């Protein structure tokens, strides 16, 4: 990490701590902000947060490792979470999952080499009446069929980076 990046991360963490508080109750919201912006909670970030809320960094690591939406390793820009619980299973989640593996060319638990997509299983996401369902970052996709998978992935790509800028006419 470049020194300037570190400085920026540190400044942001300080700003979040000012917003949410310098106490342990602020820990989750700060970590959630770091995760959303940097797609993981780095050792440096955890150390910095620990200092700010006055606890040992191991305590912060303990919290990060507990929650499945917080990670110590960088995730892709798009985290694809496929609901694996019974209702989505009966609705045909296996075929959708297989097509995701094929189209992204990675296995579950992996991130594409370009850092765009991470593929994960999720426990019930509360879309049982409209399965198979998946979450991509904060967006829900319901009644997904295997032949929609390609378009969903391309739709994500189109909303990110240079493609998105071209669309907006920059």
């Amino acid at each position: 990490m470049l020194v300037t990046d570190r400085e920026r991360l540190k400044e942001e963490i300080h700003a979040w701590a000012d917003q949410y508080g310098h106490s342990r109750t602020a820990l989750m919201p700060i970590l959630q902000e770091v995760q959303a912006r940097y797609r993981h909670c780095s050792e440096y970030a955890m150390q910095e947060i620990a200092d700010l809320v006055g606890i040992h960094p191991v305590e912060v690591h303990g919290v990060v490792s507990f929650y499945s939406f917080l990670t110590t390793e960088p995730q892709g820009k798009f985290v694809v979470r496929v609901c694996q619980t019974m209702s989505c299973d009966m609705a045909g989640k296996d075929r959708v999952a297989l097509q995701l593996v094929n189209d992204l060319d990675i296995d579950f638990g992996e991130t594409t080499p370009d850092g765009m997509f991470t593929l994960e299983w999720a426990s019930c996401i509360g879309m049982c009446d409209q399965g198979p369902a998946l979450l991509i970052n904060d967006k829900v996709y319901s009644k997904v069929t295997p032949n929609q998978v390609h378009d969903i992935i391309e739709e994500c790509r189109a909303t990110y980076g240079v493609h998105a800028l071209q669309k907006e006419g920059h």
Partner: protein
Amino acid sequence: MIGKLTFSTIEPNSGLQAALKMGRVDIIGEVATSGLKGRGGAGFPTSVKLNLAAAAQDKTKYVVCNADEGEPGTFKDRVILTDHADLVFEGMTICAKAIGAKEGILYLRAEYTYMRSHIEEVLQKRREANLLGDNILGQQGFSFDISIRMGSGAYICGEETALIESIEGFRGEPRNRPPFPVDTGLNNNPTAVNNVETLAWIACILSKGGEWFKAIGTDKSTGLKLFSVSGDVTKPGVFEFPMGITVGELLEEVGGEGAKAVQVGGASGHCIPQKDFGRAIAYEDVSTGGSIMVFGPQRDMLEVARNFMEFFVEESCGQCTPCREGNAKILECLDMLDEGACSMKYVREIKGLCETMQIASKCGLGQSSPNAFLSIVEHFQDELMGRTE
């Protein structure tokens, strides 16, 4: 959603206006008359919870809305928060008045992040209408506001003490109870944690009266309940039925006739076979937080049990041994059954382990996670034993 929910027939804020004219004792009395029990699944009498929190002498108290809806097959809270968030916040405000709290927290699961902006808007409108904030609707000294806290993907945080741990910035590991949250909750202050649906019903009850609610349902399970229906039915979705409806009656309403079994209460609930479809969905018979998963004749019940156990192995917090190790052992047994390599003696041994888990686990997760396995083994043993490829 199918049909009209009672929630959409309630005059907005009529429950709150009624509560503002009442004292604490009368508000809680109305809830007690209704017989309302916790709609998240545990079924604890709501008025008792409020009474205990109200009786505490502490200056700081909290009202927490548990929107960490993670039980497999449950999505009613998603629908309530999308269509009737106002009613939930009205219920929270009534609770605040009843117990003397100034601060409310909505704990929303990370999987529902997409609802957050809508919920924030609803809260903001309520602040602008003086339904939240200082001196609510002109009542001097009654101030209450609600903030949102997000979960981060942990089923166990739906357990109320784990939820509190999470808000406090800890791993979501349940606490020993007692002390209960109504006494020693968030930041060691009295805290009334209620399910989304329970809070919405509180608002309805204050609007229409406890007697109205009590007249519906059975003696021990009063009122109406929302059900999340999924699986092999023609009409999956959220339904409202009176408590005490039988499994068979419910199946007719949702287009699930001909089902082989129904999982009532999600992964931690019980699997009801066809011969028991006459049983009632009520606290005194088959209890549920609202999850109804229907399995058609073609479903492999071993796969069902395995899916649920995979869920519990993943979601056990790992804090206490019976739950952490027990769930893994049950799953291992199911894998052996699947390979046709499991003796009846071993199945019985695992059933013994299930009993240990039910008694010795620290929280509801480990106490109830063997239910699905036990009921499937009991009713579908013939399907499980002696498998070939």
